[in-house]
């Protein structure tokens, strides 16, 4: 229920539904979507609650392609707008996301990932890391990427992502997964209306006589002008670095540092507990923003840690960024499950123990 008293509220909610409720509270003005498992509850929740929010535009489009282009139009017309989907649907949106990054349009995109490649499975995965952080579509661009690890963060990151996306006039992506979308946890919902919005003076809202016409475009035929736009975008991505966020759990004295994001970081937290009980000096480094990536934090950890173990629900994607950050100063191992399989804390611990064994064989 819309919170009109301006107070926060505690509820037990499914990740997808909590995210949808958070979007209302964050002042979302429009949502365009298309059903796909495991995130269909977002659109279902929004349409069910729509009567309480008569000013919010909620529309089921004919395809993900149409939906993201509606987002483009609405964002260009000054709206705070969200779209959500799951892996194959997000692939369909990549062309428009490139246009949006180039035309500098803010929007919140949510990917509740499922196992791929192809039609894959509806089970949770982190297989879209590359697509999320490297651009995904054509050309040189980046999305701002936040990776939640709890239902609470499915709520909190909606606010953060809207704020960052509007601050930098760039699409922001919440990279969740099927488990986070489907599982229920206790959440604190912030009060509605707590996220201010600055007026979009660049938007196409109708040209008054007092200003020049506003044009939303990514087309600059002259290469000199197109290079200039690229330089502007790259300068913006450099600026974004100050938004980097990460979390460290018992990493300060750890010989073995696990690196994991999203759901896998939750799993690895448990592995750290189990390992510490066995006397292993193990810790966790969890990137919260995947773009910008917490490179400096990893470099710092490389001074004390002996070895890193990146754990992901994919064939090894973030591990490439971890290796780039460490630059060969320490070994960076990888453990992953694919195709919708979720690793258990115990199986990660088995890998940790085998690494610990090789460490103990090295003469001090």
């Amino acid at each position, binding site marked *: 229920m819309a919170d009109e008293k301006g107070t926060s509220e505690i509820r037990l909610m499914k990740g997808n539904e909590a995210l949808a409720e958070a979007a209302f509270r964050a002042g979302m*003005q*429009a949502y*365009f979507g298309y059903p796909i498992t495991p995130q269909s509850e977002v659109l279902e929740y929004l349409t069910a609650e729509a009567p309480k929010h008569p000013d919010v*535009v909620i*529309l089921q*489009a*004919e*395809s993900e*392609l*149409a*939906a993201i*282009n*509606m*987002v*483009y*139009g*609405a*964002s*260009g*017309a*000054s*709206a705070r*707008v969200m779209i959500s989907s799951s892996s194959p649907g997000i692939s369909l949106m990549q*062309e*428009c996301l490139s*246009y949006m990054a180039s*035309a500098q349009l803010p929007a919140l995109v949510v990917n509740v990932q499922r196992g791929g490649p192809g039609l894959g499975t509806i089970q949770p995965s982190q297989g879209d890391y590359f697509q999320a952080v490297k651009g995904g579509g054509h050309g040189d661009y980046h999305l701002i990427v936040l990776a939640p690890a709890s239902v609470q963060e499915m709520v909190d990151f909606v606010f953060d992502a809207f704020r960052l996306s509007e601050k930098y006039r760039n699409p922001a992506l919440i990279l969740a997964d099927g488990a986070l979308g489907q599982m229920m946890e206790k959440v604190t919902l912030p009060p509605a209306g707590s996220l201010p919005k600055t007026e979009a003076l660049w938007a*196409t*809202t*109708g*040209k*008054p*006589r007092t200003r020049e*016409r*506003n*044009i*939303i*475009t*990514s*087309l600059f035929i002259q290469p000199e002008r197109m290079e200039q736009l690229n330089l502007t975008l790259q300068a913006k991505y450099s600026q974004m670095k100050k938004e980097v966020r990460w979390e460290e759990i018992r990493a300060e004295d750890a010989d073995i540092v696990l690196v994991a994001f999203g759901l896998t970081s939750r799993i690895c937290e448990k592995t750290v507990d189990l390992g510490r009980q066995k006397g292993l000096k193990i810790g966790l480094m969890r990137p919260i923003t995947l773009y910008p990536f917490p490179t400096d934090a990893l470099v710092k950890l490389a001074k004390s840690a002996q070895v890193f173990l990146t754990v992901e629900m994919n064939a090894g994607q973030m591990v490439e960024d971890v290796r780039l950050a460490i630059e060969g100063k320490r070994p960076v191992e990888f453990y992953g499950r694919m195709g919708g399989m979720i690793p258990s804390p115990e199986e990660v611990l088995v890998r940790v123990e085998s690494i610990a064994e090789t460490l103990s064989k090295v003469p001090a």
Partner: protein
Amino acid sequence: MEPAANIDGMELVYKRPRTLTDTPMHYCPGCGHGVVHKILMEVIDELSIQEETIGVAPVGCSVFAYDYMDIDMQEAAHGRATAVATGIKRILPAKYVFTYQGDGDLAAIGTGETIHTVNRGENILIVFINNGIYGMTGGQMAPTSLLGMKTTTTPFGREVSTMGNPIKITELVAQLPGAYYVTRQAVYSTAAVRKLKKSIEVSFKYQKLNKGTCFIEVVSSCPSNWKKTPVEANEWLEKNMLPFYPLGDIRVPKS
């Protein structure tokens, strides 16, 4: 700059619409785009809706329309103009929104968006320029290319057996309940231009009624890619295009 009202005692009988910018157009001689742009802006001037109008120009020759139209505009990806327009109109329902699309954009890559936008009855105006060819990419076959028409990708002429028939998308959308006003016009003669202007004018008026989509097909020519002079192109259009794409209203509001 507005021209002086009187030059050497001569009476000013014609001038550029205020909402059409003073920018030399990149269109080829004889191309229909320039005329349609001018008519559109003339209507916007006459209705005094420059401040309330937002246009969408997708990929195609008219992708630079915003260089010539002095209104807020969005460029759209190929085929997605009506989805973009849907997003704009849903946020700004009191404004006038139009798309300006070519045949490849509207009737090939964007067919899905075209049909569903009209089916939802979005209160926008769709201006559809049909010249039976891909102009910007250099004269390839369009979904509306006539049978036998030679293009760079049908060098021996379009054949039904491999390429199918040209699509009459305007007749198709006219059947959808969301369509309010559907018409096919042209710009090959002054009489045709006058009729087109009337259609655009009523379409903007209809948009205020919130009763559904207005859809105007403009049968136009592409002399450069048809490999004809502007005059030959107009003659060819009248002789070949119009029998297949007959002019006139296809769906009119019930009175």
